[in-house]
């Protein structure tokens, strides 16, 4: 093969690569638009419930962990809240009974027993209040993390960010199917 033939082949190959790259760019623009669309949808879903956005983007493990963590935090916080309210009613009733004892016609032993029960109930209420606060904070944290994860760390990937890519292109307009290595700068 002559030098002229080699040069011709090289130019031909370069032109072919450029055409292939332009095809690829068009495809990736559509892909990026789809990603932006699905990203907004994912953020909306995560705003509705943490982890749903990650699940919608196919990040099943992260999404599942976030959904489960949020559900368990909320369930624990709600149960602690319900328990707190029930015990608080009981505490208030016993407190008013103890205060009525101060009016007279009562005994030291009964007042002491009631006082010790009030102290124990107050400790339990403290613990339940703490549980409620901690798990509410956890639920809020998971909610914020789920959104931040999508907003900050899961942006649309550009082809530049993707680096070199090997793509298989189908036969188009009589051109044979081919493998293309392409990159955008």
């Amino acid at each position: 093969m002559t030098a002229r033939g080699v040069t011709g082949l090289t130019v031909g190959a370069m032109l072919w690569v450029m055409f292939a790259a332009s095809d690829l760019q068009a495809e990736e623009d559509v892909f990026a638009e789809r990603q932006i669309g699905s990203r907004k949808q994912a953020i909306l879903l995560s705003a509705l419930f943490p982890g749903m956005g990650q699940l919608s983007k196919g990040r099943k493990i992260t999404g599942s962990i976030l959904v489960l963590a949020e559900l368990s935090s909320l369930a624990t916080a709600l149960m602690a809240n319900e328990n707190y309210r029930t015990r608080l009613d009981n505490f208030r009733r016993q407190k008013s009974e103890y205060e009525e004892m101060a009016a007279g016609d009562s005994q030291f032993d009964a007042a002491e027993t009631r006082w010790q029960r009030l102290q124990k109930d107050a400790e339990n209420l403290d613990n339940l209040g703490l549980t409620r606060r901690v798990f509410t904070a956890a639920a809020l944290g998971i909610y914020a993390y789920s959104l931040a994860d999508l907003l900050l760390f899961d942006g649309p990937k550009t082809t530049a960010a993707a680096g070199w890519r090997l793509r298989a292109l189908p036969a188009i307009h009589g051109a044979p199917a081919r493998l293309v290595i392409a990159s955008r700068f």
Partner: protein
Amino acid sequence: MWLLLVTLALLGTSCGDQHSLPAKFHEDRVESPKALSATYEEERVVLQWTISASAQILYYIVTVAEGSTGTEWKFTAPSATQADTVEFAWTDSFYTFRVEAVDATDFVSESSNLDTVFIPQ
């Protein structure tokens, strides 16, 4: 979702003062009799105790408990004294005594120490 979280957060921050303990009144209300001693003399039991002169006592309650059955009998003693004599149909047993003070509002104080005597018949 937001409403639920915000509601929980608000509840979580507002639960601090909802279960404060009431003022403890019963420890300083009425002083309890101290140093109770019971002595068996001539078919009677003589009780003696001490209490501060400033205590506002309406009367005392003397409780006698029979040792084997635990059956209790209560008597009253006037506030002016710090002693009492119990006459009773004693049986051959141990008897335990305790004294409580009662104030003008009918609040009964903490019990005194217990003292036990054996009464032979």
